[in-house]
């Protein structure tokens, strides 16, 4: 039933675009790196537990080494003391990488508007998805994961992401 080249190759071969195949692989096997500092990390642990299973989405291989991960979940408040470490860990992750800011503190500083809290990690590293909540429910984390997957679907293999980003630590 196929046309053209596919007819010649037979049923066991499908043709597709390179972008689609690569993105399909990337979205359904995201390896999260949990940069968990505070209460949101506990909620992420719940998301990874059996009731709100995160491995349904292919992301149960939680890696604590940035070199083996591609999705960084910043769970918790980032203080100015922690900021250079966050930046360094982000830079250690190989491309392609995505960042999710989980919780109110990571998105905007949360309830801590003061001298020691970074008012949103977008000032330090580029962020793809923000999850609101204090802490957000595990279902919200899964929703964010789905949004990242949808985002990955629309990307191109050739384009470098976030190369022109400049934050306060640059």
């Amino acid at each position: 039933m196929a046309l053209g080249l596919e007819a010649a190759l037979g049923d066991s071969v499908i043709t597709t675009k390179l972008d689609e195949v690569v993105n399909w692989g990337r979205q359904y096997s995201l390896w999260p790196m949990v940069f968990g500092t505070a209460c949101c990390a506990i909620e992420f642990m719940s998301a990874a537990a059996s009731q709100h299973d995160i491995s349904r989405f292919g992301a149960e291989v939680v890696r604590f080494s940035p070199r083996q991960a591609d999705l960084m979940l910043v769970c918790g408040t980032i203080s100015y003391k922690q900021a250079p470490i966050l930046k360094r860990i982000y830079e250690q992750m190989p491309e392609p990488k995505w960042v999710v800011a989980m919780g109110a503190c990571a998105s905007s500083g949360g309830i801590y508007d003061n001298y020691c809290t970074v008012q949103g990690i977008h000032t330090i590293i580029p962020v793809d998805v923000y999850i609101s909540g204090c802490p957000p429910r595990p279902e919200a984390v899964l929703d964010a994961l789905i949004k990242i997957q949808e985002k990955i679907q629309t990307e191109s293999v050739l384009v470098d992401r976030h190369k022109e980003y400049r934050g306060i630590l640059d």
Partner: protein
Amino acid sequence: MKATAIEKICSKFPGIACREVLNYVEMTVQPEQLEETLSRLKLYPELNFGLLLDITGIDYLEYPVAQDCRFAVVYTIRNWRDNMLVQVKVPVPDPDKGVPTCTHLWSSANWAEREVYDQYGINFIGHPDLRRILNHWQFKGHPLRKDYDIFKGQVCYDSYSMENEIKNRLLANGVDETTMKDINTEIMFLNLGPSHPATHGAIRIFTALDGESILANVNEIGYLHRGFEKTAENRTYNQVIPLTDRLNYCSAMMNNIAYVKAVESWLGIEITERCKFMRVVMSEFFRVQDHLVCIAANLVDMGGLTNYWYLYNEKEASYDLISRLTGARLTSSFTRIGGMYRDFYDGWEHDMEVQLKAIEKGVSDSLALVLKNRIVHDRTQGTCKLSAETALSYGFTGPCLRASGVPFDLRKDNPYYNYESFDFNVPVGSTGDIYDRIMVRFEEIFESIKIIRQAMKHIPDGPIFVKDHNAVLPPKSEVYNNIEGLANHFKLIFEGVKVPSGEWYDSFEAANGELGFHFVADGSGKPYKLKVRPPCFYIMGGFHEMVEGEMIADAVINLGSINIIGGELDR
């Protein structure tokens, strides 16, 4: 006991102003008499104040009542054997000159004085290592001073190298430069950095290893410093409650209860019986939750992943009960001054019983794997021992102190909320190694379940709220329908509950130890100063005592056994 406490103390200190506040003694001394007073408090056998709970500073710049000096330092010290508490307040005329240190008397003063220096800029003469502990090393200024603008953030561009500190520590442990350079004892510096799965939070453990043994260890904290104290100065008393939630976020409601108990004790509000029982049930329930997480994480570090599923799933299941009761899974903000947010829902006893049975089953399953397990025994028994004297000197409280053999529990020694009528035991360890700490927590889970069952049987009916229009919001039917209720609601919300001015300290037995709150009130609806006495801050201060001489793998499971929660450690 209380009546003679003030007499006992005052008789040993003629000429020093002593007065009784709540149920403890407060002394004001001049800087010249400070060393003498503190030594006497520690060393005189009749006084024997061996547990330095907290040191904090106060900045009186904007206080309505004029004081002699702008700064003061307050020492909170406890005699755990006779249940006596004393606060020593000393005015500081010149913060750059400061006051003499007391690290030679109590080791917990080391980190406590560092924190006062960091936040207030008060120097401590003779301190071995006075540098910043909560704010980053590039920070300029002292944030808790009243003239520091709360919104002024300072960016840190680099992490701190800690080279000097580790070298000094090595020197203190008998390893000098020549040994370090000798090829046969080549020291390797290993950093278990702030982002590490084993640290369960953001703590930096910097070790100097010889092979696998730790020769020296220095720790850096403050990566989750969120400015709780300065933020609390800009909130009304009820608005601070969500901030307290996020201190020890594994047992969030215990912090709420501890905070509200402290405010109510000063306001003189006697909460209703039903409210007392409700608070007991919820705090014991959250104690169980905290211990479940601690043990689960600790056993995962040892490699026993199955225990994580057995224990953590029970915690996850109990979120159903908690979210039904409070509306939120983790950070509940459930208490209010004078009562709770709302009463129990119908059918809660049944749900609670189901949870308790599930927890008992989960814990029993886990214990069956752990109790007689050879690997667990080898790894945890005899490692990272801490003697009772060292533990007391470092300001340990709670399960870690009890594991070292000191039978001190605020619920038994200084009871509140009818704890004296509950029938429960306090498990006490013998050697203070990791095994004791884990087992004490297991036993405490069972004891807490006992208390909850007893409370559920005896909980009386009645109102949850005290009828006091000065502190408690009127019910919504009043607020929406008549002007008195609305005006009352308005004033209580935007001005806050007006607390009479003064200073006081109140404490509570939280899951990790003694959670204390030291308040300075100026008569308005916002606290002038609010200091949290965090139990795991002092436990972390004694961490290096436990791991030096052990192996690096032991350090990892030791960190899990002392239950460090970042929110409480760094506030």
